[in-house]
């Protein structure tokens, strides 16, 4: 499947249909890029204690929401007008689902930005930021790859992301334990650490959404639903 590339959606008899699908795809990638930047900025504002950036990030969510609505509408119209089947149908359905995931990612970024604002106001020494940076890099990477896999229709790459998600979960567990130790060391750290914990949790959720997107990419490409299936089986589907 990896050898059939992007113009799989571009060779319909109806050129209008082609451009509609392409538009859906590019708009989705645009939204993905926006959300990706949002998460990145939120994490940056947290680490740099940049209240201004945090505020900007928080407001950016409005744009993402607008794009989400537009994409949903476009997908609905395609279904109504074209009654897509097979590959086209899977694309449209996946986009609808992935748009929801992206919107959630945006929400998580908003949450991080809010926490960053709160933390910067408190203005105390950073604790647990190493973990945040580490996990955020990982998660951002996953998000980026999942969008990339969507753009390339690369199910192998998508499968990789599914596996990554396990590692993120482990990292989150480890970071949580570390923060717990901080809190036990000093009572005054508790409120602060809880906020950082919230950030970590948000990042972990972003990872989950990236994983969902990857699963949808596999469905789009292979036509098999790999949600709630063990990775080994998913491997078989992608490999075969």
């Amino acid at each position: 499947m990896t050898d059939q590339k992007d113009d799989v959606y571009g060779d319909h008899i109806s050129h209008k249909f082609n451009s509609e699908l392409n538009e859906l795809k590019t708009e989705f990638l645009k939204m993905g890029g926006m959300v990706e930047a949002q998460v990145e900025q939120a994490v940056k504002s947290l680490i740099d204690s940049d209240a201004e950036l945090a505020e900007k990030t928080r407001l950016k969510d409005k744009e993402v929401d607008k794009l989400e609505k537009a994409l949903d509408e476009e997908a609905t119209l395609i279904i109504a007008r074209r009654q897509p089947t097979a590959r086209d149908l899977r694309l449209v359905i996946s986009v609808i689902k992935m748009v929801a995931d992206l919107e959630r990612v945006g929400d998580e970024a908003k949450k991080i930005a809010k926490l960053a604002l709160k933390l910067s106001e408190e203005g105390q020494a950073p604790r647990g930021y190493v973990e945040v940076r580490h996990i955020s890099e990982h998660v951002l990477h996953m998000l980026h790859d999942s969008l990339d896999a969507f753009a390339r229709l690369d199910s192998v790459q998508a499968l990789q992301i599914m596996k990554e998600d396990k590692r993120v979960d482990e990292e989150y567990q480890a970071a949580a334990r570390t923060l717990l130790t901080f809190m036990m060391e000093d009572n005054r750290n508790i409120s602060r650490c809880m906020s950082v914990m919230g950030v970590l949790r948000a990042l972990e959720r972003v990872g989950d959404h990236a994983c969902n997107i990857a699963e949808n990419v596999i469905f789009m490409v292979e036509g098999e639903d790999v949600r709630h299936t063990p990775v080994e089986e998913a491997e078989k589907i992608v490999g075969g």
Partner: protein
Amino acid sequence: MNTMNATVTSEADMSETENTPLPETKPAEATIEEGVTVGQPFADDAKFQLRNVEVLYGENRAIKNISLDIARNEVIAFIGPSGCGKSTFLRCLNRMNDSIDICSVKGSLQLEGQDLYDPKRDVVELRARVGMVFQKPNPFPKSIYENVAYGPRIHGLANRKSDLDDIVENSLRKAGLWEEVKDRLDATATGMSGGQQQRLCIARAIAVSPEVVLMDEPCSALDPIATAKVEELIAELSESYTIVIVTHSMQQAARVSHRTAYFHLGHLVEVNDTNKVFTSPEHELTESYITGRFG
């Protein structure tokens, strides 16, 4: 929506550039291997067992080595572009091709283990078992009653008038037409609406209690409401009949059939569960056809 429309051109350009860096491999040429059908062409409880069927129009091979089972009480849809042989293949199943002199059928075609093309086989008996509904509603220019009663009468299915009345009523009921026409059974059938005429043709076909009903694009001349009624009827009939339907409407195939067979240039490319065919077909050609990529 406005923002989307405004960005169409620029975004499309962007996607082009975005896509170019990807490895430049052409899509694999979709190939058909003669006699090979992807998916599940065979069934356990086969009504029709068709093996290595070939149909020739003079020198021209209209059907190329097709093997297929049609299961009992299933609705199987034949789809494919014009001239792919789906109608020809359908007509083999009750030997409607017989009247065409240059047409010859090879291979093994069996209905419940009996050879269809056995020279000793009576084609009249076969057609009583395998009924047919055509593309254009073609009621006889007689009364509604006569249209339905004609089949049972020529086959001697009813000895008494009351028996015949029962058959007519039952058939019309099954075709969902009874309530609409019970007061005007003597009215001429050609005065009915297109959808009613087609349902009358279905009633006429099932009046001789066939085991199989073949439908050759039964809704192509009907409006959407009439089409919906006929589709509804097909769903009801599938409980007691095996139905083979040729259709140009993929949505129709998706709606009414259990299995879908995709024909291409005389080949049977893919047979699969309808749900599978319309969400993730196995063969590249099937996918191209059902997604509208042909040409």
